[in-house]
């Protein structure tokens, strides 16, 4: 068993008093390659936000014995990005250096070389001066993966990284994920594609507000678990009893 990177200790995360992730506990080991899947509204993105430190739990704690918050690279869903911002590809990559160079530090020759190398790794050599506006969805995702690469983080969180991305780009980016895995980085990816998860991710968390199953992918994605996950109700109940009261009773 590898060292614990993240410990999720009875965590409840959510919005306005309603849980999106309910009393989740588990351990993510160093170098884990973990897929998180589940129906829409099952709390996958919320869990990643919690791990990234963007959302405070109502209850419980996310412990990071193996790393600091800044050792975590978080790639949100593309929808959160302003694609019409007049930035070039290199401007976007520069953001990946913020942790290393700060918001105000200067970018040296070595940094530029690293950015060009990252761009080459994701198959976009020569794109450095392209306006982001002119990139296709897949190209933008490659650029964002290059940014993650530059962050040189020990924990990498990817939220639905392959939505509306073609097969070739997916296979290139999955190769990059395996490279990170080989470098003993911890990767947690929210995914919908069960085939991809079965083929590429040894460990899976099937989430439906609560953990339906967490562990070896083949066992977690057993049909009975998937049916159980689908039964989750998405609706908020404004009159639902308070969880604490239920426990006491």
């Amino acid at each position: 068993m590898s060292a614990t990177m993240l410990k999720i200790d009875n965590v409840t995360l959510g919005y306005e008093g309603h849980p999106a992730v309910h009393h989740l506990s588990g351990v993510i080991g160093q170098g884990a390659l973990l897929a998180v899947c589940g129906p829409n509204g099952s709390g996958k993105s919320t869990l990643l936000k919690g791990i990234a430190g963007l959302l405070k739990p109502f209850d419980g704690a996310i412990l990071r014995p193996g790393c600091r918050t800044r050792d975590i690279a978080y790639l949100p869903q593309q929808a959160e990005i302003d694609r019409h911002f007049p930035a070039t590809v290199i401007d976007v990559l520069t953001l990946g250096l913020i942790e290393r160079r700060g918001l105000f530090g200067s970018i040296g020759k070595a940094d530029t070389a690293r950015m060009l190398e990252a761009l080459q790794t994701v198959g976009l050599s020569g794109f450095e001066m392209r306006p982001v506006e002119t990139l296709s969805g897949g190209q933008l995702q490659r650029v964002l993966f290059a940014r993650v690469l530059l962050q040189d983080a020990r924990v990498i969180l990817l939220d639905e990284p392959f939505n509306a991305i073609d097969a070739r780009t997916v296979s290139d980016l999955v190769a990059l994920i395996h490279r990170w895995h080989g470098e003993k980085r911890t990767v947690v990816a929210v995914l919908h594609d069960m085939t991809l998860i079965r083929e590429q991710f040894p460990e899976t968390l099937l989430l439906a507000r609560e953990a339906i199953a967490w562990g070896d992918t083949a066992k977690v994605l057993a049909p009975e678990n998937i049916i159980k996950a689908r039964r989750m109700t998405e609706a908020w109940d404004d009159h639902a009893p308070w969880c604490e009261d239920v426990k006491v009773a």
Partner: protein
Amino acid sequence: MGPYELLIAPFLEFPFMQRALVGAIVLSLGACPVGVFLMLRRMSLTGDAMAHAILPGAAAGFLLFGLKLVPMTLGGLMVGLVVALLAGSISRLTVQREDASLAALYLISLAAGVLLVSMRGSSVDLMHVLFGTVLALDNDALLLIGGIASVTLLALAVMWRALVAECFDPIFLRSVNGAGPAVHLLFLMLVVLNLVGGFQALGTLLSVGLMMLPAATTRFWTRRLELMCLIAIMSGIISSIVGLLLSYHLSLPSGPSIILTAGALYIASMLFGPLGLIAGQRPHRTHRTA
């Protein structure tokens, strides 16, 4: 009338024209790039709201000390900063988005300002506060404008990367660095500073024009941020020069002349710029292989 009399003589012969020219050009240096970032953050109307919001501060200064630069400027600055801070805090700490909190606060502020001005002074004074007088810039006003432009350019240079991150991918910035809210508030302060700077020259209502019109113009010229800022400054400076000359030769009020010139540049760019309407409609007769 030759080109000398048309273009050069007004500035050489009349010191008030020189002051107006220097004031408007220096104002453009700071206000135009701030306008570009406002536009990119989809806060184009925020400048307008803030311009209204600083009115009661200026009015309070006017009420207490008469038509004087320092108290009116300081008053405007303080109220503007308070409104910016409150609007930013409300949106970060509650469910309300910033456009709504800002709208609420600036309306409260504007009504208070009109009330204050009406308590003393004639409508002429109100017109002065609202529309300014670029032809009456004194040394203090020029120093103030120069100081604000210097602070703005310096702050933009230092905050550049943070501002880009905040505009392009705010969630990313939040995930790697806690400075996002501070950057946002600092930026709003720059907006207020530049509106107050334009206040003497163009008045509360029109100072936002020199900030936003050149910024909106740039979108039709380039997709590069650095170039956008440069083009905005150039367009602000051209508007200042042409507007002042028009106002001189045709005996028009100077503030509106400057802003209308900027408006003409905007419309021309919107129609004829490389990313403008006509270029966008024209079908490409030739195309590349890749």
